[in-house]
C-alpha cells in the first residue's frame, strides 16, 4: 500500500503540509490501469508509471498523484522487472491480460483511465527498421472492453500511435467513434524549452528545420513531434502532409546546397545546442559548424547523416536532420513571414530523473481528471505517419513519396503547453 504515514511524515520539515493541489478532494479519486510492455529501471514504463505512484513536480510543488493506479498489465516481466515490487508497495494488482487489468479482475470496466506505454522490451523489428511495439494491439484490446462494457474512458498512448499509419488512423477513428479523450506522443512537445519561445499563434511560417541525432524510427519521431508542436500553430492550422522523402549521406549536404533546407535555420538551431560534437567534446570550445565546413566530418564512424524532408499541404516545407556525432540534443528553428526566426532547444533534463516525464504525465493526469485531452491526438497521428513514410522512402531508394492519405487537419490549442 501507499505508505501514507511515511508520506505525511515527509511533510513537516519539508513544508508539504497543506495546499498541495488536489491532495485531498471531496470527489472520489479516479483509478487508472497501466498497460506496459516493461517496467524496468529507466524504461518508459517505470519513469512514467512511477509518476502515478510517487508524484511529480508541478508549478513549484511536489504534487501527489491525483489518480490511483488500480491495476497493471506488464507484458514482459524479466529479471529486472519492478512491477511486482511496485504492486506490493503501492497496492495494485497485476493482471495477466489487458482486459482483466481494465476490469480489475471483475466483469466490467473498473478504471477511469488507461495509460498505454509500449516502449522497450523484446519485440521484432521489420525490414524498415521499425520495432513492432504492440501499441495498436493494446489499444484495440482496451477499445474492445469499452465496447463490450458500454463505457469508454480517457486513454494515453506513449510515443508513436503505431509503426503503421493505417493502424494509427484506426486508433484515432476508434477514439472518435466511441467519444473518449485520447492523448499520445512524445514528451518533447511538453518539455522545457531554452529559450521558452513558441511560434506565435496564427503566424505565417515560411520554412522550418529541426536537428537531433539517433535513428529515424526511434528518435527522429521525438524531434519531429517537437517541431510539429510549433508548426501546428501556423496560420490556417494544420492541413497535413503531401509528400515525404528521406535523404542520407551526401544527399543531405547536397540538399542543403540546393536550398532544400536552410543553412541559416541550421545555424539558428545549432546555436541552441549545448552538446556539439567534435572539437567541443575534445576541449569544450564553441563552434560555428555551419560555416566551418566541418559538419560532414563530424558524422560518427559507421553513422550517416539523415534528413526527413516534409512537404505540407499548405506549401510549408520542413526538414528534420539527424546528425549523429554533431550534437546530442534536440533543437528547432522556424522562419516566419517577417523573416524573424524562432529557435529553441527542446531541453530534456538529464538521467536518471528525466524530469520531462513528469511534465508529460501531468498532462495525462489532467486529462483523466478533467475528461479532456489537452492537445489533439492528430498531431501524433501525423508524426507517426510521416516517420513511417520516411522509412518507406528509404526502402524505395530514397524517393519522394506523395502522401494524399496524410491530409490530417487539426487545430492546435492557442495556449503553449510546454514546461515553464
Amino acid at each position, binding site marked *: 500500500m501507499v505508505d501514507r504515514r511515511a508520506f505525511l511524515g*515527509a511533510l513537516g520539515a519539508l513544508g*508539504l503540509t497543506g495546499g498541495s493541489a488536489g491532495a485531498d478532494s471531496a470527489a472520489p479519486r479516479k483509478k487508472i490501469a497501466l498497460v506496459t510492455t516493461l517496467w524496468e529501471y529507466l524504461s518508459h514504463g517505470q519513469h512514467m508509471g512511477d509518476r502515478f505512484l510517487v508524484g511529480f513536480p508541478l508549478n513549484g510543488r*511536489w504534487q501527489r498523484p491525483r489518480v490511483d493506479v488500480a491495476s497493471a498489465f506488464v507484458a514482459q516481466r524479466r529479471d529486472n522487472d519492478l512491477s511486482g515490487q511496485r504492486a506490493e508497495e503501492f497496492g495494485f494488482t497485476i493482471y495477466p491480460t489487458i482486459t482483466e487489468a481494465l476490469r480489475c479482475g471483475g466483469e466490467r470496466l473498473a478504471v477511469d483511465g488507461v495509460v498505454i506505454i509500449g516502449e522497450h522490451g523484446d519485440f521484432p523489428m521489420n525490414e524498415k527498421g521499425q520495432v513492432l511495439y504492440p501499441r495498436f494491439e493494446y489499444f484495440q484490446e482496451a477499445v474492445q472492453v469499452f465496447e463490450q462494457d458500454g463505457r469508454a474512458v480517457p486513454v494515453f498512448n506513449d510515443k508513436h500511435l503505431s509503426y503503421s499509419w493505417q493502424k494509427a488512423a484506426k486508433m484515432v477513428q476508434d477514439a472518435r467513434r466511441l467519444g473518449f479523450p485520447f492523448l499520445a506522443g512524445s514528451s518533447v512537445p511538453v518539455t522545457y524549452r531554452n529559450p521558452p519561445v513558441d511560434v506565435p499563434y496564427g503566424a505565417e511560417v515560411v520554412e522550418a528545420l529541426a536537428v537531433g541525432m539517433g535513428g529515424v524510427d526511434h528518435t527522429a519521431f521525438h524531434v519531429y513531434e517537437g517541431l510539429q508542436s510549433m508548426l501546428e500553430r501556423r496560420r490556417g492550422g494544420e492541413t497535413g502532409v503531401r509528400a515525404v522523402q528521406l535523404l542520407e549521406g551526401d544527399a543531405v549536404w547536397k540538399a542543403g546546397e540546393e536550398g532544400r533546407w536552410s543553412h541559416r535555420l541550421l545555424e539558428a538551431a545549432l546555436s*541552441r545546442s*549545448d*552538446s556539439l560534437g567534435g572539437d567541443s567534446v575534445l576541449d569544450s570550445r564553441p563552434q560555428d559548424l555551419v560555416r566551418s565546413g566541418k559538419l560532414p566530418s563530424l558524422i560518427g564512424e559507421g553513422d550517416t547523416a539523415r534528413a526527413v524532408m516534409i512537404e505540407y499541404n499548405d506549401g510549408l516545407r520542413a526538414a528534420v536532420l539527424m546528425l549523429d556525432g554533431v550534437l546530442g540534443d534536440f533543437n528547432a528553428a522556424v522562419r516566419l513571414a517577417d523573416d524573424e526566426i524562432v529557435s529553441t532547444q527542446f531541453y530534456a533534463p538529464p538521467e536518471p530523473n528525466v524530469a520531462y516525464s513528469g511534465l508529460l504525465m501531468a498532462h495525462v493526469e489532467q486529462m483523466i481528471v478533467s475528461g479532456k485531452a489537452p492537445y489533439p491526438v492528430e498531431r501524433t497521428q501525423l508524426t507517426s505517419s510521416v516517420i513511417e513514410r520516411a522509412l518507406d522512402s528509404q526502402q524505395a531508394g530514397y524517393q519522394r513519396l506523395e502522401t494524399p492519405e496524410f491530409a490530417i487537419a487539426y487545430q492546435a490549442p492557442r495556449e503553449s503547453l510546454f514546461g515553464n
Partner: protein
Amino acid sequence: MHFTRRQFLAGSAAALAVPPALLRGPALLRGGETAPQRRPRIAALASTYHKYAHAQHIVDRFLEGYGWEGRHRRPEMDVVALYVEQAGPDDLSRERAGRHPQMKIYPTIAEALCQGGSALDVDGVLLIAEQGSYPSNDKGQTLYPRYEYFRQIVDVYRSSGRVAPVFVDKHLSWNWDYALEMVETSRAMGFGLMAGSSLPVTWRHPSRDLPWQADVREAVGVWRGGPDGGDIHVIEALQAIVERRRGGERGVRAVQALRGEAFWQAFDAGSWDAGGWDGDLLHATLARSHELVPSRPTFNHIFPTPEDIRRMAPDSYAYRFEYADGLRATIIQLNEGEGQGVVRDVNVAARLGDGEVFSVLCHLPYRSLRNFFSPQVRHIETLIATGTAPYPVERTLLTTGMTAAGLESLAQQQRKLATPHLTFTYQPVQQSMFWRS
C-alpha cells in the same frame, strides 16, 4: 578574521588618491555615444587555461564565438593579449594562440596589458583566477590571486594614466578587505568593474524573475555544498533575485553558520523564528530541481523524506543571513561530501508578502559546452563596449562578503556574527539579466 571597521558607502570618496588625469578613459568608454574607431582589444588574465577551466569557457567565447539568439555570435572585440599563470600539460592556451594569431601570450600581467609595450594598450581586461593550484587557508578558502592580479592591473593603469573596464570572474576575492579595495579603486579611478558567477545570468526554469519591488519576507537557496567555491554560486543566485525587492538592497547585518547537530535542529525547526527556515521554501527549491538524487533504489525521481536527507547528506550546512531591512535568507547546502547528496542543481525560493512562493531552478547545462558562460560573456561584451557594468558589482561585493562571513562563522564554532561592513546599499537594475532569449 577582523572585518574592517570602514563602512562601505555607495559613491564614497576614494580610499586611494588618484590624480584626475587618471580618470580619463578612452572615448569609447564614456557612455558609448561615440562609435569606437576600432574594435576594442582585450587582455585576458588566467590562472590556468585547460578544458572546462573558467578561462577556457570565457576566453574561448571571444575567440571562437558562441551560440546566441539564433546565431553564431562573433563578439565585435578581440582578445589580443593573454597571460596564463599555470600552464600545465593540459594547457590549451598555446593551441588557442596558434589558431588565433591576433592573441599573443605574454609572460607577465603588465606585459599583457601593454601588449609588450610600456603603457596600457587594451580596452578591457578579463581577470579569471579560478582553478589551478593555490593554497587554502584554515577556513577552507582557496587563495586564488584575484586581488593580486587586480593590483597589477591598477599599477599599469596608474603608470599609464589610462584605465579600462575589468571583469572579475566569480568572487572579487576570498578576502573582504581586498574585495572592498577593488571596488573602491574602480570607483576612484573611474573604470567599469563587473564580477560574479554565471548563476544570476543563466537560464531559469521557469523563466521568471521576482516581480520588481515585490515584498519579500524570506528566501532559501539550495545546492550540493562545497564551502567557499560552492557557496558563492548559490548565494549570488539568491541575491540576484532578492535584490529586486521593495526598498532596494540595504545589505546584510548578521550571519550564522549551522553545521552538524545545529544544522539538523534547524532542519527540523520548520520556521525561521524557531531557528530554522520556512519549510515551504525548502520544499519549493527541491520541487524545482531536475536533479534530485534518487533517495530509493529503482526510483529515478522521487521526493526525499527528511530521513532521506539526513542519510544522504549527513554533513549538510547552512548560512542564515539577516538583512538590514529585515529580510531573512538561508543558504542550505545539502552537502554531498562523502555521501550521495540530495540535489545537484541550484534552486531558489522566496516567500512574498502576499504569502505566495516564488521559486526557480537556475539551469546550468553541463554538456560538451558549458553554455551558462554565454550570457555572462554577452554581459562582459556590454561592459567592454560601454565601459559600464550591466549589473552592479556591489552585488558581488556583497556576496563575496557574505561568503567570507559565512565561512568565518563556521570557523568560529558557528557563532552568530554581526556584519556591519555588509550593511551597504546598492541599486539593482530593473531589467532582468538572466538568459531568456
